[in-house]
């Protein structure tokens, strides 16, 4: 569904942060990317979703080359982004946040769709008319994921959704992401939280200084993450 081949990218021209990343995730699959601060996770998330330009290499979405396209075109090709720090619209209501997301993707926010999202995250219905800035961190994360869902995505790239959340809230995020996977949406999850990656992903890539140093899966993967990432 989403495939990156030999991807090079960075924040400034001539200063690449990513050095030849290859990854692939199929429909309903979930790929994790773990790495320390500064490893290039956010850069990778932004390059996949079009917020940063591709310096070299290719991003394929459903077989189509979207490397030269920006965020708007990729959102409209059904690739959504849950950015680091959630980036909700604090002064807009919860419902308005969802409306803007649907507008950005060029889709209508139907009553059915709204019901689907609000069933998954009931807090978004209870606080539909509250300003989003008044939500707790966990609730804001639901909203950020809800915004991606109303865009009717084929793939969602999530950048550290566990950041700043309590363990209970992280459990909730894991449960929700598994549910979204089961609905056939592909997920790419940039994370530092091995528990969340284990709960959601089939395969985890270890990113270090802009390079994928290992591909990890299953129980062996968990052990390798512990060794490679936490030093044993």
């Amino acid at each position, binding site marked *: 569904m989403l495939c990156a081949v030999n991807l090079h990218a960075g924040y400034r021209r001539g200063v690449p942060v990513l050095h030849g990343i290859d990854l692939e995730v199929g429909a309903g699959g979930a790929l994790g990317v773990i790495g320390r601060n500064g490893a290039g996770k956010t850069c990778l998330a932004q390059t996949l*979703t079009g*917020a940063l330009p591709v310096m070299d290499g290719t991003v394929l979405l459903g077989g189509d080359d979207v490397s030269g396209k920006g*965020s*708007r075109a*990729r*959102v*409209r090709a059904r690739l959504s*982004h849950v*950015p680091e720090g959630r*980036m*909700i*619209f*604090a*002064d*807009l209501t919860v419902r*308005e*946040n969802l*409306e*803007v*997301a*649907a*507008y*950005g*993707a*060029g889709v209508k926010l139907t009553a059915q769709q709204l019901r689907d999202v609000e069933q998954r995250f009931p807090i978004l219905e209870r606080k539909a008319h509250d*300003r*989003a*800035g*008044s939500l707790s961190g966990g609730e804001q994360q639901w909203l950020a994921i809800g*915004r991606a869902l109303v*865009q009717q995505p084929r793939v969602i790239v999530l950048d550290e959704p566990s950041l700043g959340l309590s363990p209970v809230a992280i459990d909730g995020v894991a449960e929700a992401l598994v549910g979204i996977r089961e609905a056939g949406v592909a997920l790419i999850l940039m994370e530092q939280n091995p528990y969340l990656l284990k709960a959601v992903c089939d395969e985890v890539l270890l990113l270090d200084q802009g390079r994928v140093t290992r591909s990890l899966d299953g129980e062996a993967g968990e052990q390798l993450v512990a060794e490679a990432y936490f030093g044993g």
Partner: protein
Amino acid sequence: MDLLETSLISGVVSGLLYALAGVGLVVIYRVSGYVSFAQGDIAAVALYLGFWLHQGGAPYLIVAVAVVIAGAALGGLVGRFVVVPMERFGILAAAMATIAVGITIQGLENAFIGGEARPFPSAGEGTAVTIGSVSLTWADVISFLVCGVIVAALATGFKRTRVGIAMRAVHDNPGAAEMLGVASVSLKRMSWIVSGALAGVTGLFIAPVYSLTPTSVNAIVVFGFAAIVVGGFDSIAGAVISGMVIGIATNLTAAYINTDLVTTSLFLMLVAVLLLRPQGLFGRRPMARV
């Protein structure tokens, strides 16, 4: 009593016009987060075009439509080629650019057209209604209705339509709006077109009363600016109510105290509101996690 009645009623009529002038500023603020100080100058250019059309024998309706279209076109061009590109250096640079545009337009008008006052046709002569001892002209009534309809339409548009909500989202968090696929630059350009059209409409009601000079609309836009500061930048209803309060207060100052103190009373009110309630009487404090 007559003087009081006149002050109150004409205060309400002019107050709604102040609100319209203010709302023209709010449209750009709500998308981009700064105020255009070129609003009155964009209106002036459109009005000069209307003036010449009228001199050439065009009927009022054609003149009015041409002024609004010219305002929209000039606003769109200024936004597209000068101010929106300047936003990459920050909103302060963009706001300064609007001052530069305004002064440039004034300079060109003074150099090539001359700064003398010219008469501008009115939307309607003669008495339309009499309330107590106060007679309102057709121009007053039309101005009141048009301003009311436009202000209500804009308030609804920002609150209920998808484009309006997306415009507010761009102001709230431009980076997030882009990531969600919102074409924020297009919305900013659109706000300049709408704002230019509103400048034209506002000018159509100001120029017949104060006559047409390069700065006559600017003088009223100052009252519009005060209306949105007092009402709150994010509240169109607040702009209407505070526009009327300003209209009445300045009329009462002129009638009972001293006409020279009108502007002083306006700015005293502005300072008092800013000291006591910086977000305006009807504005909300921005949400921020601390």
